[in-house]
């Protein structure tokens, strides 16, 4: 088992996906010889040829439509959208087509073989066109699965599961962690089940819930809280659609408190959906209102990125306020 970073883990997963199924095809802007702007696809064109790993023209709607067509006719389409900020030109293909192909045709046709990979999130001094977290837009659309890994190990297993899932998946990659996160990752082929949250740390006083790059933030906040004698249970949601309400509710029934942290803006963010559901499931177990520590309702800023971020310190303050409610 080697220590590798998240990009290497993703590259490894893609290589295994192409190797293990000759029907799989990888494409997107600059993913060919250059290996993608983040180099997630490095070396794959040399290994699998230009027909199976190639650059597309600069057209997100074209990439998404092409992916739908490929998958509708029996192929496995692995498409890269260069930044999640640029997924919006493709939103009609994804929301109206990818998500509904099976339903609207009565299962005469489906595009379950589609996976869109896209780097999301801030912390890279990228301003608002290289930092957004648009996951909530897609959780509103029935028929899509939305997956976000927190580290290199998770990225490889979740990506392989996403590519092989019988449903279309949008796989958001936390680009802040691409090179920063290094973990022991098995060389072999493995999958992590979609739709399951993971209890990362046991605790008794409050449940902290996040996904992707924010997992590191809530773990830091939990460490700070531990020094004040507060025991935090930590859950990584991993899949946002469909999401594992049961694991979250079980934890909240034990701790009596819930804090949700996400980088996307507060209003309309996925924390709202989780709060409403957990309030229904756990009303009589709750010791305090469910707390949300999220991005501000502004476009993602450049110079005030640090202030904007739902960071560990803000989370720590919210933990104390919730526990002492």
């Amino acid at each position, binding site marked *: 088992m080697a220590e590798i970073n998240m990009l290497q883990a993703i590259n490894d997963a893609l290589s295994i996906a192409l190797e293990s199924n000759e029907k799989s095809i990888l494409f997107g802007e600059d993913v060919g010889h250059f290996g993608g702007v983040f180099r997630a696809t490095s070396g794959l064109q040399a290994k699998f040829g230009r027909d199976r790993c190639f650059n597309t023209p600069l057209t997100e709607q074209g990439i998404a*439509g092409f*992916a*739908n067509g490929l998958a509708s*006719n029996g192929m496995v389409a692995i498409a890269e959208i260069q930044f999640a900020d640029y997924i919006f030109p493709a939103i009609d293909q994804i929301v109206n087509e990818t998500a509904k192909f099976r339903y609207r045709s*009565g*299962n*005469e046709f489906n595009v379950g073989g589609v996976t869109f990979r896209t780097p999301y999130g801030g912390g890279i001094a990228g301003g608002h066109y290289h930092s957004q977290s648009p996951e909530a837009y897609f959780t509103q659309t029935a028929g899509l699965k939305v997956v976000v890994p927190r580290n290199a190990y998770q990225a490889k297993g979740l990506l392989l599961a996403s590519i092989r899932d019988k*449903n279309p998946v949008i796989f958001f990659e936390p680009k802040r962690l691409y090179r920063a996160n290094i973990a022991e990752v098995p060389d072999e082929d493995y999958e992590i089940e979609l739709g399951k949250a993971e209890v990362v740390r046991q605790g008794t006083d409050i449940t902290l819930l996040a996904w992707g790059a924010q997992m590191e933030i809530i773990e830091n906040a939990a460490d700070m809280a531990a020094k004040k004698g507060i025991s935090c249970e930590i859950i990584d949601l991993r899949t946002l659609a469909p999401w594992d309400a049961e694991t979250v509710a079980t934890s909240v029934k034990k701790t009596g408190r819930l804090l949700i942290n996400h980088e996307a803006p507060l209003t309309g963010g996925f924390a709202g959906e989780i709060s409403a559901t957990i309030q229904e499931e756990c009303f009589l177990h709750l010791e305090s209102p469910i707390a949300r520590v999220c991005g501000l309702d502004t476009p993602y800023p450049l110079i005030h990125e640090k202030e904007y971020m739902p960071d560990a310190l803000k989370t720590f303050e919210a933990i104390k306020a919730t526990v002492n409610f």
Partner: protein
Amino acid sequence: MSNATSDNETVHRVSFLDRESVNIPILKVLQADGTVYDNAVLPAIDEVLAHRIYDTCVFTRVLDERMLGAQRQGRISFYMTCTGEEASIIGSTASLDDGDVILAQYREHAAIRYRGFTTEQFMNQLFSNEKDLGKGRQMPIHYGSAELNYQTVSSPLATQIPQATGVGYSFKMQGKRNIAICYFGEGAASEGDFHAGLNMAAVVKSPTIFFCRNNGYAISTPTSEQFCGNGIASRGPGYGIHTIRVDGNDMLAVLAATQQARAYAVENNAPVLIEAMTYRLGAHSSSDDPSGYRSKDEEAKWQQHDPVKRFKLWMINKGWLTEKQDAEMYEKYRKEVLAELKVAEKLPMAMLDTLIEDVYDTPTPRLQQQLKDLKKHLKKYPDSYPNSKGRL
């Protein structure tokens, strides 16, 4: 390389290109009286193929007439005809292999009929009953059949265009000598998906025929308000795509062009663009009234170019059809459509369980819970939900 300016002729005075710089001829084979132009090259067609084509024409005319009437009577909610465009649709479909995948817009029901969609299947879709292959999930005219390689129609305009590029590419990767054909109107060619799909097809070398029915109107918007260039065909060379413009009311011209387009696409793993110049004789849909935006004279002029009549005259000239046989065909289909309509409209809707099927490959626990809660409610107030009453 296309960017290598050293290959280009140079000039030393300013000179712009305009729409007149691109001169695109229209392929015509069949004249209005059913005779063939003197120097025309006929497509591959024998009596059997001609009859299959004409049979589809007659069925489609009857279906359109009857179902528009049924919509007016309130028996179905919505309908669209392809009257006037039969040659474009059937001539092109008849040039394909049955394994080629059709990605239609919404006015190509003649194509799925040509492939063998039965009258009963049409009615089941139009009435959204429990036998509809689409499980009653889309409005009338959104046909689809995996068995017939006809992808289910989706309402948003032009989305099928880049998808066709993907389907074509999938055949190339599977090593099959098949293609995708994608139908769209000249209005859909204004959408971003048109550019995305054609540009990608040329770049990735996808064996796909892009078939534009330039029928004069996008709902009420005439072509003069849709584009300023030389039609849709002029864009083909700009993408590096093999392109032809045909008389879309000329069955033999469409057949000839599409037969050769298909052969080229398969041999070269490359896309082809066909622009069929035709005219939408009917309304855009049953919700539209063209008298508000075009003249009776204009419509009457195009009636003279009726593609079905022109092809019929050719068949009669060949001795392959008589007026009597023709009348019998219409009569047969009128009876058949009416009989199937009466059966289909009495069939119940799909069971409520289908409401949560096919969202994902298996219903999620949350969806199952929602259905359970819904059923409990429906059982409490059955009279308020007549579709599911007694069928939960």
